[in-house]
């Protein structure tokens, strides 16, 4: 396989940190919206145990999900290439490999 062929063949391979950056962007959106929601709940909610309990539960569950995901990502090589499975081998691979 020539270098040109190899480059085109691997077009569906992306390093994992690309996706992690996207995930972090979504995480930032989530944190901003969550902060506003908690602020509204604590500012305008009735001083009642349900207000505190639901807010505590929300923070607890969100933290568990975020820390769990981050904990898993810490064990993974972020420079590893991820094959999305959108193979273009039929288009660019040498005929001998098809």
């Amino acid at each position, binding site marked *: 396989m020539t270098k040109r062929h190899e480059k085109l063949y691997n077009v569906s391979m992306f390093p994992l940190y690309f*996706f992690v950056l996207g995930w972090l962007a979504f995480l930032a959106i989530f944190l901003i919206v969550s902060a506003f929601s908690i602020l509204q709940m604590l500012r305008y*909610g009735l001083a009642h145990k349900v207000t505190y309990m639901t807010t505590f539960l929300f923070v607890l569950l969100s933290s568990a999900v975020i820390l769990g995901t981050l904990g898993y*990502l810490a064990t993974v090589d972020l420079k590893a*290439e*991820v094959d999305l499975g959108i193979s273009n081998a039929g288009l660019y691979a040498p005929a001998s490999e098809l």
Partner: protein
Amino acid sequence: MINLDKLPNQLPDEKITGVFRRHPITIFGIYVALMVILVLPVAAYVVLHLLQASILENEGQFALLIMGVGLFFMFVILFLYQHFLDYWLDMWIVTNRRIINIEQRGLFSRTTSELRLYRVQDVTAEVTGFVHSMLDYGMVYVQTAGEKEYFAFEDVPHPNQIAKDILHLAEVDRREHLEEAMEAMEQTTVDKHDDIRQKAAQHIEP
């Protein structure tokens, strides 16, 4: 935070007689969504395992799956919290002097209005439909004297009892604060006369 011991613009000798919210059945969608989020990822994992999908063996693809599932859970939890917030922040507070209506629409829109009990003229309870009748929840409309506007308690439990209580409280308040009520009614009449005078003046002017 709203403290029932210190209501906004609290009147002297004001006591809370009830705090009402929509019936919990109206947030049934939340419970269903909660069941779905508990079951869906487990079901998806079982299906992938049964199909022996390569995504579970490939480290990179599995990391993508974990990130996707993490995002799914985060935003579902956020959706549930906001849905609950919308339900929990909507409330009707009835005191022995007034009715306070607090309505939350979405995250940033909020309306607070109040009505003095001596102005209440007519209270209507409405229960329509099979589920509403079985669980005894519905609407309560509070109409004030001389105005077309009304307060509506939406989907509150035991609407007939609430209507009865409000009428009773209004009657007691009218008796106890007769002078204040008369002054307010006179003021309303003066305002109305001013309004009529202004309209007449506009009509006369070319």
